[in-house]
């Protein structure tokens, strides 16, 4: 039943049009627009509080936009609940890790497969063969993804016992388990050391290469952003101040003023 969903499985265009988000007395995003081309890595950068996570929250249905539209694969996302957006193949990780600490890694990953599986209360309760087969099949894929993310030996370990860096990889693996067409990564290397950063960067590149999906990336590690991203949107105080290729953005005086700072190169190293 799952598997190739005709026309709904490939990467697709994400179009964010004039999205505005307001919180009591504060405009977190104001008329932000950008487009993520299918199969590309698109970075959103900007100072703290610029509205990057807010943007992700709109894309994944956690927040509702006051106005504007987000279109993905022919659907209007702003009107949808989070689980409906997930069903379209939009997966994300969280800036502050959002895993179930008590559950082992495998269960956290299998949650990612929620949308691809069907076993409900009845079939699980009765342990129907169909439920078991489904579980086995998807577990295999989850294990494959775990292996890929370097979590091979940790499937049975409760997430709460893992170090921070590893948890971040569990987050990524869980998102991958959704077999997404669009992957939203909110600061995937925050709190990691250089080695782990490189490793994570490699993972992301490989995801894009192997799966051919679009990736939307929020990250403060400019080195990584510059290397990975095809295109960058820069936000500041909820407004888009630049949009272009890494090269263009890097030299944009506005971006340097607001975000990178004059000594960006040194700061990054």
């Amino acid at each position, binding site marked *: 039943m*799952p*598997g190739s969903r005709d026309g709904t499985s490939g990467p697709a265009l994400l179009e964010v049009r004039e999205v505005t988000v307001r*919180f009591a*007395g*504060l405009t977190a995003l104001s008329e932000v627009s950008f487009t993520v081309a299918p199969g590309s890595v698109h970075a959103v*950068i900007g*100072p*703290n*509080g*610029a509205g990057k*996570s807010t943007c992700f929250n709109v894309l994944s249905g956690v927040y509702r936009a006051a106005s504007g539209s987000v279109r993905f694969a022919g659907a209007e996302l702003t009107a949808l609940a989070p689980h409906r957006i997930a069903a379209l193949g939009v997966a994300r990780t969280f*800036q502050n890790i959002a895993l179930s600490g008590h559950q082992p890694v495998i269960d956290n990953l299998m949650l990612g497969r929620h949308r691809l599986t069907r076993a409900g209360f009845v079939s699980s309760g009765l342990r129907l063969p169909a439920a078991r087969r489904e579980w086995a*099949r998807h577990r295999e*894929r989850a294990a*494959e*993804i775990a292996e*890929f993310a*370097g979590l091979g030996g940790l499937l049975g370990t409760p997430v709460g*016992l893992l*170090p*921070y*860096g*590893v948890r971040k990889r569990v987050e990524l693996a869980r998102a*991958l388990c959704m*077999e997404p067409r669009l992957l939203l990564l909110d*600061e995937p290397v*925050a*709190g*990691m*050391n*250089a*080695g*782990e*950063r*490189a*490793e994570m*960067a*490699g*993972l992301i*590149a*490989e*995801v894009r*290469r*192997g*799966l*051919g999906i679009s990736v939307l990336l929020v990250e*403060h590690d*400019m*080195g*990584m952003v510059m*290397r*990975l991203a095809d295109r960058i949107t820069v936000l500041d105080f909820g407004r888009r101040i630049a949009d272009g290729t890494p090269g263009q953005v890097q030299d944009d005086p506005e971006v340097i003023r607001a*975000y*990178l*700072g004059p*000594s*960006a190169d040194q*700061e*990054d*190293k």
Partner: protein
Amino acid sequence: MAATAPPADAGLTVSGLAVSYGAVPALRGVSLRVPPGAIVAVLGANGAGKSTLLRAISGTLRFHRGAIGGGTVRWAGTRLSGLAAPAVVARGVTQVPEGRRVFARMTVEENLRAGGLGGGRRSAAAREEVLGLFPVLAERAHQRAGLLSGGEQQMLAIGRALMARPSMLLLDEPTLGLAPMMAARIAETVKEINARGTSVLLIEQNVAPALSLASYAYVLEVGEVALEGPAAELAAGDEVRRRYLGMGDPADGRPLDGPAGRRAIGRWQG
């Protein structure tokens, strides 16, 4: 006992500290010293035990079901190990926790007041000082702290800790998740705080900025001090550069399509 424990009774002295969470050891015989007025950095990979070290100093291990198995922590001659967190604060040692942990449902203003509760006296002056350091907090005084951005929250967390007017500040990865400019600002602030006479024990993963701030640094590896020395020396030393500091940036050298040996991943055919 580690042979390197410097003899002194001023400043912070950790000697032979062993900590475990239930049966899991997290620190084994860690010794280090923060001289008064210094900034000392503790570096190390994820899970090396950096946060554990701070928890042991600040008396919050019990919130994580951890316990000190041996060794002592002394501050200005008095013993801190074994004290509860408020008692540690009362002796002038405050910690900014990892991940900021501002009181999300309280306003910025109230967060600052909460920070001043342990210290008690002169909180108005402390408040002036903090708002001087972080003017943005004054702007957002009546906003709920949970709704601040990451950087704003980090400033609040530091400002909140300063409200107790500590003579020793413990910082756990203050630049975690911050934009470069913001990280730089935080670094500046730490310097400024230190210049006003507060000793700082700084936990970082971002090695370069940490070493440029600190005068002395320790590298933790799986619960033990693997390396220590003046920050400048460490920053210059080859081994450190290679092993911990990610200088010469391995990411640059590595092909982006993944390290050799990792299985590639393909579309699911299920």
